[in-house]
């Protein structure tokens, strides 16, 4: 059988977190009643003039810099004409031939190797309104239109066709999301639609230079469905070619329920967008000084931060990557380090128990009930021997559930570690007396038996016995 290679490029739409819309002063906030966050401009009423929101341009430049793009010195907006009720004007204001930025890249890690993925362009445009269908989409003769989202600022980020597998595409999107979250301009929540992704997919025989015919895949609402949809689509195309067929260039939609892509009914001749320069908006000249002042706002980005963690904290690359994957997690980690200086220990707790509880409760780390200071003081208490490692995990669960600090919980529940040799000695002797078989096993060299004996003491003390001390007492009493 012929070996095929998959070629993927992604088009990402990103909703910016501005207060007002891109061309008018209507609110961008979610959850308003239908058609209450609108004004004459975003409704496209006659005689109105759009005016560009300066923050949108600054956010676009900030993201462009984070993605190593070349910022245009001169940029303008264009009209994209199409007749569809999601835009009241019958056109969308977008950017066509002079986008704000071109020629960027980001790096993804694949099996320990870095791969550079090109970014073709980045441009600004307005979001569309929402069409709500009554009943099922196939039976209802009507759509209801809510224009609250019409005019919300979007960035469109187009990658080069540099991605060679569905997994690479997912990793690229995760990296893009991470970088953009660091810049703070968008929430990047795929499930809520503030980050949306379409994919261009084609396959070609290995070793061939020219690209195969591509299809465009839409409606992938999570990282998982992106990877699933692309995997399906690549194998569908290979099947068509293997059967001697040809790929039709078309737009297909991902059907999550059936796990397949289906051709979309095309908006009749809709792809004739007849772009022309937007006469209602004057062009932009982007001065170097403006770009540089925005560059100063650029935070330390995930790649640089990960390298710093490896260099300064001697963390394994994997740990450093996980801890810097979101800015919030890295900030939390560093806040802990301010109060407790062992990076490896803090990292293990964040990647282990903390992440587990956050996931189980569907919380983000900035919503974590345990503050960095409280986590640090728990770790100090552990180091001081006030509680055992086992108890620390119990205390942590409690801290997470109640928001209380470690000291309070340890006091309230009487969880202080028993490190008093006298009282432990008595319990150890009881366990020796009650388990002669294990005692003789241990004496004859079976170390495993010691674990069992220590476990009995832990059981008797509800996990509060100091394990090192218990170990020492058994050794003294049995072996000597």
């Amino acid at each position, binding site marked *: 059988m012929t070996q095929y290679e998959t070629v993927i490029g992604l088009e990402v739409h990103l909703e910016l977190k501005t*207060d007002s819309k891109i061309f008018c002063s209507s609110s961008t906030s979610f959850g308003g009643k239908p058609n209450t966050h609108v*004004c004459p401009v975003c409704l496209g009423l006659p005689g109105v003039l759009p005016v560009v*929101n300066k923050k949108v341009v600054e956010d676009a430049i900030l993201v462009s810099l984070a993605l190593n793009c070349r910022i245009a010195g001169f940029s303008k907006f264009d009209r994209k004409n199409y007749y569809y009720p999601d835009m009241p004007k019958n056109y969308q204001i977008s950017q066509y031939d002079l986008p704000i930025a071109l020629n960027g890249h980001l790096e993804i890690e694949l099996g320990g190797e870095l791969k550079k993925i090109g970014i073709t362009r980045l441009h600004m445009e307005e979001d569309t309104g929402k069409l709500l269908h009554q009943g099922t989409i196939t039976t209802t003769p009507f759509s209801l239109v809510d224009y609250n989202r019409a005019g919300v600022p979007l960035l469109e980020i187009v990658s080069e066709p540099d991605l060679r597998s569905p997994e690479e595409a997912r990793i690229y999107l995760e990296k893009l999301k991470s970088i953009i979250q660091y810049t703070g301009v968008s929430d990047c929540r795929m499930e809520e639609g503030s980050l949306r992704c379409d994919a261009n997919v084609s396959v070609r025989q290995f070793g061939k230079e020219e690209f195969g015919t591509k299809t465009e895949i839409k409606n992938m609402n999570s990282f998982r469905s992106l990877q699933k949809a692309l995997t399906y689509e690549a194998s569908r195309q290979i099947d068509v070619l293997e059967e001697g067929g040809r790929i039709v260039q078309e737009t297909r939609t991902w059907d999550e329920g059936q796990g397949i892509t289906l051709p979309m009914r095309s908006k009749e001749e809709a792809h004739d967008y007849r772009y022309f320069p937007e006469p209602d908006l004057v062009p932009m000249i982007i001065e170097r000084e403006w770009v540089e002042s925005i560059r100063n706002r650029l935070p330390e980005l995930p790649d640089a931060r990960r390298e710093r963690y490896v260099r300064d904290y001697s963390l394994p690359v994997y740990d450093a990557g996980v801890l810097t994957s979101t800015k919030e997690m890295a900030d939390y980690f560093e806040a802990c380090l301010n109060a407790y200086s062992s990076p490896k220990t803090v990292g293990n707790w964040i990647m282990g128990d903390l992440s587990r509880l956050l996931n189980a409760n569907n919380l983000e780390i900035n919503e974590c009930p345990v503050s960095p200071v409280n986590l640090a003081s728990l770790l100090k208490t552990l180091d001081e021997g006030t509680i055992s490692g086992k108890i620390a995990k119990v205390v942590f669960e409690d801290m997470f559930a109640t928001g209380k600090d470690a000291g309070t919980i340890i006091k309230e529940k009487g969880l202080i570690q028993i490190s008093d040799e006298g009282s432990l000695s008595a319990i150890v002797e009881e366990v020796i007396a009650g388990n002669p078989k294990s005692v003789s096993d241990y004496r004859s060299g079976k170390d495993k038996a010691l674990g069992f004996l220590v476990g009995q003491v832990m059981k008797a003390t509800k996990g509060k016995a100091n394990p090192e001390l218990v170990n020492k007492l058994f050794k003294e009493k049995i072996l000597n």
Partner: protein
Amino acid sequence: MIEKSDVEHVALLARLELSDNEKEIYTRQLNDILGHFESLQKLDTTNVEPTAHVLSLFNVFREDKIDRHLPLEKVLANCPDREEDCFKVPKIV
């Protein structure tokens, strides 16, 4: 050269219903307009920068501030059909 089929295509994109007579008229008029641009093409524009806008203005921005919204009754005032505070339109696609 603009053909009648081009006029029909553009009319469809703009959702205009044209009579045969109108199609003939618009085909002729659009060709006249294109003819005028052909004469403009003869100008030597070697040293002329492409024009993005007729005004010599740049960088007109507003601050990111929210202002008043239009009251719902006014939003829907000219709407031929409404339901649940939404514009009601025939389903498309």
